[in-house]
């Protein structure tokens, strides 16, 4: 095993091993970007400074109808398209198509010479990332180099002859273990789950205390334009389970689903209409479709049971008003007011307001009525953090930056203000877990625990920029410029 590892590190040894998906091959590309530019404003220095090193880290050809050498065309193509700004998830060279995704600094590339099903290929690539992440915590160059044997084993197991096979990481983990050496010993026993009807749960799980934890997490996405109008808003919710139950329990979850209530003729209390409901494969879809019952045999440990989207008009829970004034060649003054527009009893935790500033700003000075503000120069923003933000309250932050008298000529983007927060014990949509029934043959008592959290998926407040922003004589103002401190 050591020998293998040593060989792999040398970049010119294309130690490729093979895979395919209906004539596709998967490769994992390694990409380092070294930026040596001392002065980021000097364009020349920058182009010289960037050096790209790519090499094929691992490769598996499943069918062999695409030449292994074809992948050499991927890198130049990628770089060329990136330079021209025409990057696209499908790149083609001759009759070979490269479908790629990027995960941190790795590229996962599938190659095909057929008119194959694009959505399936991308799903598989993401599945690959998911499985590797479950195995190695983080999918990066090192984790692959340290686990070549397992990676090959997994690639073999996930796909055979170009067709996806066992892709459930829970099941894979039972017979492909982290230690390559152990694999030889443990080989002879294939878990029953591979052949089982319930492929996501093994038999014979035992816990002393039977418990199940249910997290209802809702994240709200709001886009506010410069005039203060809510452009779009939606709620994306998910119900996560942490199951610690023995045996093969049968669970039933009751929600205050409006369709269900309408079916059963009850209409007391608040109900919600869910759209785009997605379930974990364990949920019996046929039952849900016939009578909206969510019944399932849960996978062991943590899993996402379902996700949904609610398309209602929600007002931003934390409202931001900002005045950003840029006096060219001298200073930028920023004033941001944040107002909690949720119930007084609730408290938002870890509120983060990110305000963009010009990239050449310097000497920051802050004044806040609560929380702390910090300048993050590498991201060109001020991060204002408030640990706890009670509903109905209003806070202010003022920032002052100096600007150099000589300005850079780079065009700058117009990032919006982003707000992040988390409100526990509260869901915007009002969704509730009414009951969780747990039935097991042995008839043990089990406790369900429920927790609600609302997060911001990204509240974006676009700033109003004078059109002249493009060439730097900026003066950008947002609604409510009459705020007094």
């Amino acid at each position, binding site marked *: 095993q050591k020998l293998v590892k040593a060989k792999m590190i040398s970049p010119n040894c294309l130690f490729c091993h093979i895979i395919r998906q209906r004539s596709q091959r998967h490769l994992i590309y390694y990409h380092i970007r070294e930026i040596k530019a001392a002065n980021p404003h000097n364009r020349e220095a920058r182009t010289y400074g960037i050096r790209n090193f790519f090499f094929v880290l691992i490769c598996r050809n499943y069918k062999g109808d695409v030449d292994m050498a074809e992948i050499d065309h991927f890198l130049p193509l990628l770089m060329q398209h990136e330079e021209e700004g025409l990057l696209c998830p499908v790149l083609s060279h001759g009759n070979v198509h490269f479908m790629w995704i990027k995960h941190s600094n790795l590229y996962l590339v599938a190659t095909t010479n057929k008119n194959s099903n694009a959505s399936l290929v991308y799903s598989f690539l993401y599945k690959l990332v998911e499985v590797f992440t479950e195995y190695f915590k983080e999918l990066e160059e090192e984790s692959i180099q340290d686990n070549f044997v397992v990676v090959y084993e997994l690639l073999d197991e996930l796909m055979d002859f170009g067709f996806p096979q066992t892709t459930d990481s829970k099941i894979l983990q039972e017979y492909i273990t982290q230690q390559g050496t152990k694999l030889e010993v443990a080989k002879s026993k294939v878990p029953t789950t591979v052949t089982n009807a319930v492929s996501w749960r093994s038999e014979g799980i035992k816990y002393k205390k039977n418990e199940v934890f249910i997290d209802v997490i809702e994240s709200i996405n709001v886009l506010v334009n410069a005039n203060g109008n809510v452009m779009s808003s939606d709620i994306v919710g998910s119900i996560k389970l942490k199951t610690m139950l023995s045996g093969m329990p049968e669970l039933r979850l009751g929600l205050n689903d409006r369709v269900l209530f309408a079916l059963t003729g009850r209409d007391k209390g608040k109900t919600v209409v869910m*759209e785009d409901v997605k379930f974990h494969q364990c949920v019996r879809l046929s039952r849900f479709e016939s009578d909206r019952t969510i019944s399932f045999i849960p996978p062991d440990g943590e899993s996402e049971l379902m996700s949904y989207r609610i398309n209602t008009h929600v007002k931003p829970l934390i409202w931001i008003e900002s005045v950003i004034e840029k006096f060219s060649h001298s200073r930028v003054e920023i004033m941001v007011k944040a107002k909690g527009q949720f119930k007084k009893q609730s408290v938002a935790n870890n509120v983060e307001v990110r305000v963009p500033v010009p990239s050449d700003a310097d000497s920051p000075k802050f004044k806040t009525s609560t929380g702390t503000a910090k300048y993050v120069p590498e991201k060109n923003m001020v991060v204002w953090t408030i640990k706890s933000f009670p509903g109905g309250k209003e806070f202010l932050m003022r920032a002052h930056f100096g600007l150099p008298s000589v300005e850079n000529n780079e065009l700058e983007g117009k990032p919006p203000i982003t707000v992040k927060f988390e409100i526990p014990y509260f869901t915007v949509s009002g969704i509730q877990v009414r009951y969780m029934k747990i039935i097991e043959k042995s008839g043990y008592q089990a406790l369900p625990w429920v927790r609600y959290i609302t997060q911001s998926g990204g509240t974006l407040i676009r700033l109003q920029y004078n059109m002249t922003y493009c060439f730097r004589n900026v003066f950008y103002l947002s609604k409510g410029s009459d705020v007094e401190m």
Partner: protein
Amino acid sequence: MPYLGSEDAVRELRRALSNPNVQSDQLRYRNTILKVIRLPSLVEYVEQPLTAGLKDRAACVRRVAVLGWAKLHNLQPNSEIDAAVVNELYTLLRDPDPVVMVNCLRALEEILKEEGGVAINKPITHHLLKRLKESDVWGQCEVLRILQRYRPQSEDELFDILSLLDASLVSPHPPVMAATLSLFLSLCSGLPAVNLAALERVRAPLLAACGSVSREMRFTALCHIQLLLRSLPGLMGAHYKRFFCGYAEPAYIKQRKMQVLVELVNDENVAMLLDELKGYCTDVNADTAQAAISAIGRIGRSYSDRCLEILTGLLGLKQEHITSAVVQTMRDLVWVCPQCSDTVCLALEGCEETLQDSQGRQALLWLLAVYGERISSAPYTLEVFIDGVRSEASLGVKMELLTTTMRLFLCRPAETQDMLGRLLHYCIEEETDMCVRDQALLYYRLLHCGIEETQKVLQGRRSDPSLGVLIGRPAEPISQWACSFNTLKPLRQGSVETESASRGSPEHVTFDPKPNTDLSDTLDCSQTETLLYKLIIFAHKTHVVYKIQCFIIKYPTIYKPTSRAGSKPFGCPRRD
């Protein structure tokens, strides 16, 4: 490779394979088969374990064995197909393990490739449909894809199948949803009403896919929505906000979203949409900004006043890439909406200073040529171009400049005569590029034929000749794109389209270059002139001057053929 090739490895594999009970150790069996299947020299040893593997009790062995046969066939594509194996595989379609079932389909597809793949009859179809729910996402997609080949015998059967599939149509997994829709479209190709209902039904899951976390999935969904919109332009009208771009989205998604937004515009949302698009025009990414501007131009075909206001406002920014895109957009807009020309003529004044790239300058020249008499400063603008022609690098600009000067000369001879002379002189005497020189010679000889002849050739159209006949694009029949749905093709399509639409003169976009390839003598004279004009314009873009020459030889009334070899050009019109 770690486990192929070496003698030790081969010896060990052979030993493992000669063990009659190799499949009793399930994982070893799998590993051995996987390795061996790539070594042609070991093929003879594999058949026995594979046959035994098909009958094994463990599902995981059967899975490997089934695909093993497909691989074996792939290794020796010319070998005879073993009927017994094929029969065995058909029997295994009834295997209790869903993965074995799907693998059988895949293997049969591969082995029977020559005969058109696995045979799908009624019992197999019904069996597969019944067990569809048991398979995972990958298996479902495979089954749905293969079922596309089945033709139901009666309408009742068809509708039974459709109702069975209805649940998968709104599946939360985009690949399954897309595969089901694809199957629907192929099954009911004769029933447009059912197809429409299916498309309505997938709207929600498709929109959900557009908001998926993975950008590649989002991109794929957007491309497929574009396909649907070709037949059903009103499908997503109410959901236009879902296609607004996020700040951090990559350029390829933004550009696709804008293409979709253009299709969704209607009286109610036009103000919101334009407001949103206006915001994208100042994007840092120049390509995104240009795409936004041309999107506004497209909307301008139906809402010209609002759009022109925005476009004129953008000129005020005096940004190089924005001005260039705006001028190109205006040119394309004027070509289809001649009523905009007044505003455009006013807006054009003074923008030549900001224009740098050849595309933009070409567009400006085209506009000057067509509306030269209304733009008071046109000759002065042109003069700057002509003075700089020596340092001009772009061939396209030079060609356009020649045509523009000629056309301007026709409507404002007094101001232009002098510079036309200088330009023709330069192009004929000093220019090294054959295309430009030929073009200049052509114009020069044209002038010799008299002003009327020249006018006949050069007074081209100012707007799209098809205008008025065609309002909006007709909805395409679904069958046009049904076969490419859920494949790679839609992802590649759009990008090519936008490229050609954003480049070149408007005539080029609308003029179908096909007739060019087989010019026949049957053309009557009136056609000839328009065609010649079109050819000249077309030649600007494609540099096919020789074709025009061939053509002109046929019609010597316009052009006197001369020998080109080593000919010293005729004297040029000089200002003496």
